[in-house]
């Protein structure tokens, strides 16, 4: 039996001390619980300084990990969301062509189409799962409020967490509805009446979608305001604030009752 420990490898008799503690720290995996206590063995090898050396190694390793994680994760989500959109497009396009072919003639080729579409759908599910996992990590409050899917789409439109936290709530409210927003602005500039969109991506949220039209604007405004706060907490503090979800649920019920 071989045990991987943060300070080296133990074969049941002797410890082969690692030359680089940071490396062995990252590889200290074992499939089942150790039949001995790491710290007791460690103190035999490293002496009284065991905990100080462990602490120093843990600090060095995690400082590097944190820096790497924070720099990369939001860009990863942005790329995944873009990929997801393309996958959807491909699925739609292939399904459409399949129908066209089927309408003319039932043949073997239609089966290959179907299996390819099935594979793409499986890929889409995988990408969605990955987005969900990363979003929970980098934006737990936004994910709690609107779900990973909507939160990720908003992040994708903003470009990065850094840019997202600098957006005002009013922008978050209409993000994704740029086309109709700028169309409305253009009409206003010409002195005409214009309908400014009440919601963009956040319309996908059931709390907005399920309300009557006249109340959606109010809910969208409220939700966007809370999202702006959530994004800031996610970026600067990272802890989950449970009162946020509670407040939007209350507001929703208020509006639904009226």
């Amino acid at each position, binding site marked *: 039996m071989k045990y991987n420990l943060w300070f080296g490898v133990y074969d049941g008799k002797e410890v082969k001390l690692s030359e680089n503690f940071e490396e062995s*720290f990252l590889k*200290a995996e074992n499939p*089942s619980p150790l039949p001995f206590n790491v710290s007791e063995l460690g103190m035999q090898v490293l002496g009284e300084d065991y905990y100080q050396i462990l602490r120093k190694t843990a600090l060095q390793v995690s400082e590097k990990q944190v820096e790497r994680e924070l720099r990369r994760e939001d860009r990863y989500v942005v790329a995944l969301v873009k990929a997801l959109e393309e996958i959807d497009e491909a699925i739609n396009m292939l399904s459409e062509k399949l129908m066209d072919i089927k309408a003319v003639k039932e043949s073997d080729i239609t089966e290959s189409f179907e299996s390819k579409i099935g594979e793409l759908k499986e890929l889409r599910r995988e990408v969605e799962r990955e987005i969900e996992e990363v979003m929970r990590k980098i934006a737990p409050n936004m994910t709690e409020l609107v779900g990973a899917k909507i939160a990720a789409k908003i992040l994708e439109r903003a470009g990065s967490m850094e840019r997202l936290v600098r957006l005002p709530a009013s922008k978050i409210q209409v993000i994704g509805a740029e086309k109709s927003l700028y169309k409305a602005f253009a009409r206003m500039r010409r002195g005409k009446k214009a309908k400014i969109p009440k919601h963009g991506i956040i319309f996908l949220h059931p709390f907005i979608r399920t309300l009557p039209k006249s109340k959606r604007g109010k809910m969208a405004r409220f939700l966007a305001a809370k999202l702006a706060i959530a994004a800031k907490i996610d970026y600067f503090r990272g802890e989950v604030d449970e009162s946020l979800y509670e407040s939007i649920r209350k507001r929703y019920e208020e509006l639904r009752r009226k």
Partner: protein
Amino acid sequence: MRELMRNVYLKDGTLVTKSRYGSHYGEKVFGGFREWIPWRSKLAAMILKGHRLKLRGDEKVLYLGAASGTTVSHLADIVDEGVIYAVEYAAKPFEKLLELARERNNIIPLLLDASKPWKYSGIVEKVDLIYQDIAQKNQIEILESNAEFFLKKGGEIVIMVKARSIDSTAEPEEVFESVLKKMREKFEIISHGTLMPYHRDHIFIHAASRRKAKTF
């Protein structure tokens, strides 16, 4: 001033821990004490609700879901001669936890997924206490696998359960009942209770490992 637990006092109605360190999360610091805010820390809420942990101060603790280290900082005041292995998966709050770990010498920070204890099986030793506050659907399974890897015989467990993270549609009472039932299968429950008014729809469960299998 009344001593509630080791290094934990009630000072003019305010919960504090004896500490020689400065403020970590905006809490007040005065004359060698740090205010312990029950709205921020569920462990503080649990103590104010009248529940105590018997700690000597030299315990080894595995803390799952350390977040930015609010509760860890006070626990580190209490087990000032022990060691806390603080596991947190999210990088953002971990930054703050790192600051704390740099300042104290009894915190080992681990940026790792608590649901994969084998990944840190060669780092974390056998511990006297597992503290878990991770608000995840499978938090009991995560606790069980960590206990299997790291909890000493006779070691204790404190977990915080948030009803909505286990099942967002069921009534909190139902969720708590099913969690307690699951816990009883593997552990000996010492006590449990709500954290009202500090944290809504949360309970704490204080348990211990079974010393030996039940015999009939």
